């Protein structure tokens, strides 16, 4: 097995001096530099690469590039393992490991092939019919079984170790595909001064010029391609990208391209990404994506060794590889004759079967002149050979071409088929182009464009070289002229190519006499002619329904070789012309894209930005357990010794009630508000009155949405006549800023006010507890900390060790408390200083859990109560609502439903046993023994362990709450299957008069 299927010439693009070893299904083979996995396997005589999706039929290579439906393999192993990779797209690299998929125990002997014998039980839509009952069997038995039996490769379970990057590009003209028209347009656009990106999927530029015998100017096509690339390379306004597939075309000319950066390199350097995803915003996109050859449906047309004629030619010309040594060429057109000539050049005489009655094409004549006879008016009826084709049954067609007159068996080791060409219109269609059917080529071509996209060359249905070049140079110049003022056109050189006669409109052979072999249309999804017939017979008419019922064109290859043949067959049965049948929708991605490439570098810690307070390092050093609050990392609690969370939280909260605690509140949103209309603006934004707030005082405020629901709350202070400092909750900081900007810019542009986020400019430190006054007096000896000197809701500017500080007397814990604000950079220093001086006052830090405990006990509302479904009345904030002035959302509060007195309102709950904690989210019901559905009175929003009373306490929002106080109800949590008898109490569980904060 050593490359016995190589040609003897060396005119291709592989380097026979450089051997590359690889493993396929455990056997070691070698190929050469420049090979693909496909060409190297074929050169070693290996055609059997996998088993088909549904029937587990042996399958080999059909194509040579992205169109390949069969040859999917599992690459590598361990954490680099990758399923469903198209072998024709894998460049050979030393040590490459590949194996077949969807077969067990081996690709040669696959148990699943029983499905092929039983295929009459698996027609189109078989799972809709067969597995409908008993209903309960679907999830447990049928679905897992089908999933296991049908299938592709296996996704690795380990994290992907490779690096992927994203890149953003802008250009005037993006050219997709580097065949003759693509090269011509890129050259013309670049010479005219436009910024050009030329993208080519393959490792070599040139497209069809690499395989077609043509001349351009005084050069061969291949030479002209390489000359053009050299010119483009030397131009600073051109980016050339090979191994790069533009797979998606989105709105506003945003295209996305995947570049295989290092898959083909044996030992890439550490920081070289494996693949790179380019987002390219192009001024104009030129779609020069060429065309894909169509297969022909005939009996057992899926055996290994049956390939597209163009693929056979490319294997010979580019990869110096023979798909077989006893070939049959089967065609309905002239282009396949170039494949025949290539075999003849390699001293192999093909048998030629042509469905047409005759052809006078140049290539046909050339073949005939070489003494090869052509079987015209003939077709292939059936094939034989289990794991590889060994013979074909060739039939003479009758005049209607609906049946065979006579049949003969001919030995062969490959069939090279050609059913003509399909323009690759995927990108144009993705861009919103309304395709039209071109009857001359029997295929859809781009027509009415919606975006700045222009298809040229074969992708536009222009199949001759002359046309392609002319379109390329013209379009390249025209489009680039929109961006430059150079007006410098490039003329199209003369070109020479053979002339072709027309193809025959015949893509499906009749059945051989007395037999019904499967004639496949869609190889990847195992859809045969009989499945399409069945779908039509069962009444499916819309092509979109036929597609879904049969799964035609729905595989990973998106029907690149099958869609049009399927359409053509439907139109034949329905006796409609193809444009009436229509076509299915093309969607991105054009080729499969690795998830890793889509994710890029946004993995692990890079998934989201992390926001840390300036005091973060202290928290870390002091054993804090962190919790995410949006993007912020906040200390949740600080366990001491072997403490668990509950004991740590209880200790921290109790210490605030007894001594003094310190909490990092830097994450609170802060907004600076300035301008002569600032008081008026606040008056409109908040539900309470703001015009008369004195300078040097803070006030608690509640803001609503226009629908009357509480939006956010916080403390805002007046720093001078026209200068305010607003605080918001951590969670709503960004939304509140957008909200304020909306009203200032859109609704009341006449108000002279400016708002600016200062969240990151201030570091906030809450100091709370009965000893906080003594501590602060010691820290700020210049400030009169007495109740008269700095009363509740007062503020004062001072300094600590020369650092400017602003001290607010505000409280979230319900205790006597202060909040010290310093410039962010001094946050850590100030915190440490407070901790140091606080030692003699038994200071302890407290985290977000203790913070919650303290506010829940006090009945202070937070996010769990302000959940977008509560108006001020519901959460005990009605006293905050001014009756005198209008404000955002006020009109909603007078709507009928919002004025009902028995609305769900805030209460406190204590379990009767004083022990069982009530899970947050529990439902509140009246009668525990009632039969479902039980009327729900409300829900538990926040729960804590009350450190004041040493029992559980919860806040709940329940129907007619105020009148339920003193009653016994049940808190039930069906998720935890518990039901807790509770007593309804006031939500102000501790210090309901609020005397501590004012003490």
């Amino acid at each position, binding site marked *: 097995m050593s490359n016995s299927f190589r040609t003897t010439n060396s005119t291709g693009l592989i380097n026979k001096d450089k051997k590359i070893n690889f493993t396929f299904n455990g056997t070691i083979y070698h190929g050469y530099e420049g090979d693909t996995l496909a060409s190297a396997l074929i050169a070693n005589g290996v055609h059997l690469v996998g088993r088909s999706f549904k029937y587990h039929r042996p399958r080999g290579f059909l194509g040579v590039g992205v169109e390949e439906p069969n040859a999917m393999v599992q690459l590598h192993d361990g954490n680099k393992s990758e399923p469903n990779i198209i072998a024709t797209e894998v460049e050979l690299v030393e040590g490459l490991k590949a194996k077949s998929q969807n077969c067990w125990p081996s690709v040669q002997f696959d148990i699943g092939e029983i499905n092929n014998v039983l295929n009459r039980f698996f027609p189109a839509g078989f799972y809709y019919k067969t597995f409908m009952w008993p209903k309960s069997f679907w999830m447990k038995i049928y679905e897992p079984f089908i999933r296991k039996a049908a299938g592709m490769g296996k996704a690795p379970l380990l994290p992907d170790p490779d690096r992927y990057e994203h890149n953003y590009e802008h250009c005037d003209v993006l050219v997709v595909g580097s065949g003759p028209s693509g090269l011509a347009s890129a050259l013309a656009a670049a010479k005219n001064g436009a910024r050009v990106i030329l993208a080519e999927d393959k490792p070599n530029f040139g497209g069809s010029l690499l395989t077609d015998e043509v001349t351009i100017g005084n050069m061969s096509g291949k030479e002209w391609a390489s000359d053009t690339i050299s010119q483009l390379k030397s131009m600073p306004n051109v980016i050339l990208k090979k191994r790069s597939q533009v797979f998606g075309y*989105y*709105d*506003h*000319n*945003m295209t996305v391209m995947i570049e295989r950066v290092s898959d083909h390199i044996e030992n890439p350097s550490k920081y070289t990404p494996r693949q790179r995803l380019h*987002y390219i*915003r192009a001024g104009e996109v030129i779609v020069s994506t060429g065309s894909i050859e169509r297969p022909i449906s005939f009996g057992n047309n899926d055996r290994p060794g049956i390939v597209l004629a163009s693929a056979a030619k490319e294997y010979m010309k580019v990869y110096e590889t023979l798909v077989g040594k006893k070939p049959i060429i089967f065609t309905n057109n002239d282009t396949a004759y170039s494949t025949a000539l290539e075999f003849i050049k390699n001293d192999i005489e093909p048998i030629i079967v042509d469905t047409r009655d005759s052809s006078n094409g140049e290539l046909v004549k050339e073949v005939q002149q070489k003494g090869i006879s052509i079987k015209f008016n003939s077709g292939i009826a059936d094939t034989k050979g289990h794991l590889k084709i060994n013979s074909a049954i060739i039939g003479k067609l009758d005049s209607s071409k609906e049946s065979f007159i006579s049949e003969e068996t001919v030995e062969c080791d490959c069939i090279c088929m050609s059913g003509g060409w399909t323009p690759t219109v995927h990108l144009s269609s993705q861009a*919103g182009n309304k395709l039209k059917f071109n009857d001359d080529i029997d295929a859809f071509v781009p027509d009415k464009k*919606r975006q700045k996209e222009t298809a040229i060359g074969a992708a536009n249905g222009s199949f001759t070289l002359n046309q392609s070049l002319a379109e390329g140079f013209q379009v390249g110049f025209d489009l680039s002229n929109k961006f430059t003022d150079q007006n410098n056109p490039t003329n199209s050189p003369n070109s020479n190519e053979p002339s072709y006669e027309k193809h025959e409109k015949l893509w499906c052979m009749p059945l051989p006499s007395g037999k019904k072999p499967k004639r496949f249309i869609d190889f990847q999804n195992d859809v045969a002619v009989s499945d399409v017939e069945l779908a039509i017979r069962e009444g499916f008419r819309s092509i979109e329904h036929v597609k879904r019922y049969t799964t035609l064109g729905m595989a990973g290859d998106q029907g690149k070789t099958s869609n049009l043949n399927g359409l053509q067959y439907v139109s034949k049965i329905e006796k409609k012309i193809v444009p009436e049948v229509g076509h299915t929708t093309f969607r991105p991605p054009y080729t499969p894209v690795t998830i890793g490439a889509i994710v890029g570098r946004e993995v692990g810690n890079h998934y989201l930005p992390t926001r840390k307070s300036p005091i973060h390092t202290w928290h870390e050093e002091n054993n804090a357990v962190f919790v995410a609050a949006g993007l912020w990392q906040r200390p949740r609690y600080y366990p001491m010794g072997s403490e668990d969370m509950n004991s740590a939280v209880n200790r921290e909260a109790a210490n605030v009630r007894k001594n003094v605690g310190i909490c990092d509140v830097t994450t609170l949103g802060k907004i600076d508000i300035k301008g002569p209309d600032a008081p008026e603006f606040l008056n*409109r934004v908040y539900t309470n009155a703001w015009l008369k707030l004195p300078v040097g005082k803070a006030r608690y405020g509640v803001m609503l949405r*226009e*629908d009357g629901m509480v939006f956010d709350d916080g403390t805002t202070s007046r720093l001078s006549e026209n200068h305010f400092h607003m605080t918001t909750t951590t969670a709503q900081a960004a939304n509140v*800023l*957008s909200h304020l*900007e*909306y009203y200032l*810019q*859109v*609704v009341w*542009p006449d108000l002279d006010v400016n708002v600016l986020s200062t969240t990151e400019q201030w570091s906030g430190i809450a100091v709370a507890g009965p000893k906080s006054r003594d501590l602060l007096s010691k820290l700020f000896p210049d400030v009169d900390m007495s109740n008269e000197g700095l009363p509740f809701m007062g503020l004062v500017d001072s300094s600590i060790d020369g650092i400017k500080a602003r001290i607010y007397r505000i409280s979230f814990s319900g205790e006597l408390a202060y909040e010290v604000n310093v410039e962010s950079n001094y946050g850590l220093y100030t915190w440490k200083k407070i901790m140091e001086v606080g030692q003699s006052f038994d200071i302890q830090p407290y985290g977000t859990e203790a913070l919650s405990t303290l506010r829940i006990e006090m009945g202070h509302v937070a996010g769990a109560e302000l959940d977008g479904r509560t108006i001020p009345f519901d959460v005990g904030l009605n006293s905050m609502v001014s009756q005198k002035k*209008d404000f955002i959302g006020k*009109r*909603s509060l007078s*709507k*009928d439903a919002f004025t009902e007195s028995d609305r769900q309102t805030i209460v406190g709950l204590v379990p009767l046993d004083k022990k069982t904690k009530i899970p947050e989210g529990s439902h509140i019901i009246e009668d525990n023994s009632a039969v479902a559905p039980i009327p729900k009175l409300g829900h538990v929003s926040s729960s804590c362990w009350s450190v004041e009373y040493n029992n559980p306490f919860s806040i709940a929002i329940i129907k007619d709450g105020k009148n339920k106080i003193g009653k016994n109800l049940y808190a039930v949590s069906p998720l935890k299957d518990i039901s807790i008898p509770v007593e309804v109490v006031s939500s102000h569980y501790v210090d309901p008069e609020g005397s501590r904060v004012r003490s």
Partner: protein
Amino acid sequence: MLEIKCPYCGKRSQNEFSYGGDATIKRPQLGEEISTEDWDNFVYYRDNPRGKHSELWHHVSGCRQWFKVSRDTATHEIFDTCKMNEDFNV
């Protein structure tokens, strides 16, 4: 991904912006006597046209200005953008 021309900053990618709804909605005057029906129309009800639509966008990861965009809801074509105190040219 759309490309939106901020009237202050120029063309930027959609991910710098957030959408702000129908630009033709006028908030009732403060203190205005208004029926529940009219108020509900302001708060809740929006047309959902296929085709040309005037809408608000906020350059939230940029200059933080709200501005107007005239966009086709079916094709995403953007006809014009302008500042809040301007009118569309197209």
